[in-house]
């Protein structure tokens, strides 16, 4: 243990503790900007590049960065001296001197850490005037907008992209004032190996990385003659409330449906319905592979970021993910076939909007092989954040809305589909169905707790018909990479693996309300998901009456010919670069 003094108060902390952590123990707040420590997902950004957290240490000539300086015995620190406070103001003013001042119309307005810091430090003028960067904005991709002019070079995105996700799309390029965080050869994001998981957006402190905004396009469709249907992903119903001051994890499903109806969507459906459908197909596919000696393990394929990751990095393994389309694509396909027929509309007269916790879904919706002969299965994808803006823009008092029910036939869902939103949920849902399909028995305890929680890689074995089925769950692409390499080396003996690109699964998606580094928010959302599951009368996908009906009326057999045509897809090898 190390004893030291901060602002005249004594504190004892373990060796290796930083000044920042020691100060936190005394409830002394040192402002930070580049620093971000998300232990739970193995994300630690300690680049000490912004210099905002400087403090005075007795005996040291220069100010020290609190975020990266370890404490030592007898240290005497002042975080509140005039010198330290003035230095912080200078540092901030210098950062602001090369930062656009268009906060009022910036996508990060009210969610920007630089803006908040400027407010907290009471900056009223920027005394420094000089050259400003004028980099081109990269809006080539369908998911992420990169505006290097708003970048403060904190490297959080780089840490996320390289250390946590191991995607390696982003790197620090150039030198000095001309430094920019960008892609290899300054390629447009769309041509790079970016998976569009959007985790860079989730940690960016400023407006340098934001989602591609489709709000005005969706408004235009709502006000057109077309039939505009909307579907909502499992994970948004436990996060949307945060945008309206509610506790993270609050279940706002009913209010969300009401709000969507008020916004003017013609029909409000649930992606959860399609998640149940995914389970029917995926569980049957697993059984098919087990029975016919197909390639194992089977990997889930709901996550478009993860799919693009395997296409870039493991081209020799493209036959192991399930061929199932992701739930919202299954929904889009059925909306423009089954539903169109039922409603008596031409497919091109129906517009499908998905509200997703994800920015990769924006890119996925444009994948040509998921199209339906000239029209897209899903026309527009909005993030949870974009939906919140539409609700606010319309003046809807969200917190006081009455609950409403989803429309049918594509609105009914089981508890199994709800848990898709949290890491481990897809495989748990698949097990609930596969167990009963394979044994013909009823599964009494439907909760598989070993598959839940924030551990990066989770493993479990389930005995079905005397056969041991080995399951793995991983979230975060770095964990996915390590498990895929294990398979490549022939060291893994799994039958089925669930992979989600974002830490925590979809509840931690790149399109969710900003967590600002508070990981307890993800855990609360996760709890919300499991509470919603527990509250459902039907908790197994195959027991959803609407699912039974659609197979009888339209699709035929799960994993059958028509199912293949409508609900399955293929994967495309992409450049590793």
């Amino acid at each position, binding site marked *: 243990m190390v004893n030291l003094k901060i602002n005249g108060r004594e504190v004892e902390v373990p060796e290796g503790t930083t000044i920042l952590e020691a100060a936190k123990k005394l409830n002394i707040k040192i402002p930070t900007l580049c620093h971000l420590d998300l232990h739970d997902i193995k994300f630690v950004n300690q680049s000490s590049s912004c210099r905002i957290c400087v403090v005075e240490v007795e005996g040291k000539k220069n100010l020290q960065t609190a975020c990266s300086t370890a404490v030592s015995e007898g240290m005497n620190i002042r975080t509140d001296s005039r010198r330290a406070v003035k230095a912080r103001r200078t540092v901030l003013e210098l950062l602001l001197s090369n930062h656009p001042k268009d906060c009022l119309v910036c996508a990060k307005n009210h969610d920007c850490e630089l803006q908040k810091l400027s407010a907290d430090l009471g900056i009223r003028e920027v005394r420094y005037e000089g050259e400003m960067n004028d980099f081109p904005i990269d809006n080539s991709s369908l998911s992420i907008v990169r505006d290097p002019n708003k970048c403060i070079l904190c490297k959080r995105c780089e840490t996320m992209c*390289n250390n946590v996700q191991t995607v*390696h*799309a*982003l*790197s*620090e*390029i*150039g*030198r000095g004032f001309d430094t920019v965080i960008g*892609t*290899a*050869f300054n390629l447009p994001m769309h041509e790079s190996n970016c998976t569009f998981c959007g985790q860079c957006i989730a940690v960016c402190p400023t407006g340098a990385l934001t989602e591609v905004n489709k709000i005005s396009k969706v408004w235009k469709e709502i006000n057109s003659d077309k039939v505009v249907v909307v579907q909502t992903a499992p994970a948004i119903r436990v996060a949307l409330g945060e945008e309206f001051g509610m506790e993270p994890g609050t279940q706002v499903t009913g209010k969300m449906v009401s709000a969507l109806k008020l916004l003017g969507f013609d029909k409000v459906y649930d992606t959860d319905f399609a998640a149940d459908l995914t389970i029917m197909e995926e569980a049957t596919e697993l059984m098919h592979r087990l029975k016919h000696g197909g390639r194992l393990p089977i990997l889930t394929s709901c996550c478009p970021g993860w799919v693009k990751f395997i296409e870039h990095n493991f081209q020799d393994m493209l036959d192991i993910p399930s061929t199932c389309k992701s739930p919202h694509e299954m929904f889009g396909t059925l909306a423009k076939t089954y539903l169109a027929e039922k409603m008596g509309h031409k497919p091109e007269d129906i517009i499908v909007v998905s509200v997703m916790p994800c920015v990769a879904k924006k890119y996925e919706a444009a994948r040509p092989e998921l199209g339906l002969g000239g029209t897209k299965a899903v026309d527009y994808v909005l993030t949870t954040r974009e939906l919140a803006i539409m609700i606010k823009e319309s003046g809807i008092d969200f917190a006081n809305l009455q609950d409403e029910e989803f429309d049918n036939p594509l609105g009914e869902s089981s508890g199994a589909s709800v848990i898709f939103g949290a890491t481990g949920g897809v495989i748990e849902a698949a097990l609930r169905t596969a167990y009963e399909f394979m044994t013909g028995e009823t599964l009494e305890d439907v909760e598989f707790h070993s598959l839940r929680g924030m551990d990066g890689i989770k493993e479990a074995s389930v005995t079905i018909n005397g056969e041991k089925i080995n399951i793995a769950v991983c979230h975060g692409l770095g964990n996915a990479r390590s498990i895929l390499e294990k398979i490549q080396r022939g060291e893994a003996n799994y039958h089925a693996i669930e992979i989600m690109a974002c830490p925590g699964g979809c509840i931690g998606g790149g399109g969710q309300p900003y967590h600002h580094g508070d990981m307890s928010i993800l855990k609360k959302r996760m709890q919300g998901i499991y509470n919603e599951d527990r509250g459902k009368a039907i908790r197994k996908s195959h027991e959803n009456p609407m699912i039974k009906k659609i197979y009888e009326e339209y699709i035929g057999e799960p994993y059958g010919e028509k199912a293949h045509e409508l609900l399955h897809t293929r994967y495309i090898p992409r450049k590793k*670069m």
Partner: protein
Amino acid sequence: MEFKFDKEKNKENIEKFKKTVQTYKDTKGALIPVLQGAQEIFGYLPVEILQLISVELNIPISEIYGVATFYSQFSFIPKGENIISVCLGTACYVKGGQEILEEFENQLGIKAGDTTEDMKFSITSTRCVGDCSMAPVVLVNDDVYPRLKKDKVKEIILKYGGVAK
């Protein structure tokens, strides 16, 4: 402007470079010496060679690009047959080195750091070449042009088989 890297023409060089990579492969901090080797053999860093380095050293291409753009010793543009180095050291600068550089740029239609489309000339600005009494100084390959006047620039370009404006 895009310069195409001819793999067929560079076959021997690529083999030579692969040996350089092998020399450093298992040492810590291999990237910089390998990049220097590539720059020496090919005169610049072709995309194809950076991709090869990425595979051989198992370093992501984005990281390699980041390192290569940090140091001014690395170039992504091939060097021309003749390299014009205009000294911008203090003495040469005071004596009008900048104007000389601009004249070369105007005459050849490229900026310092670039290469002409016909691959005949590259222009670079250099720091002091140690010939201050002769300022302003220009080097073309190993030939020294002391006390150079702006109106002589065209003549020099023609001498090396170039086309001036």
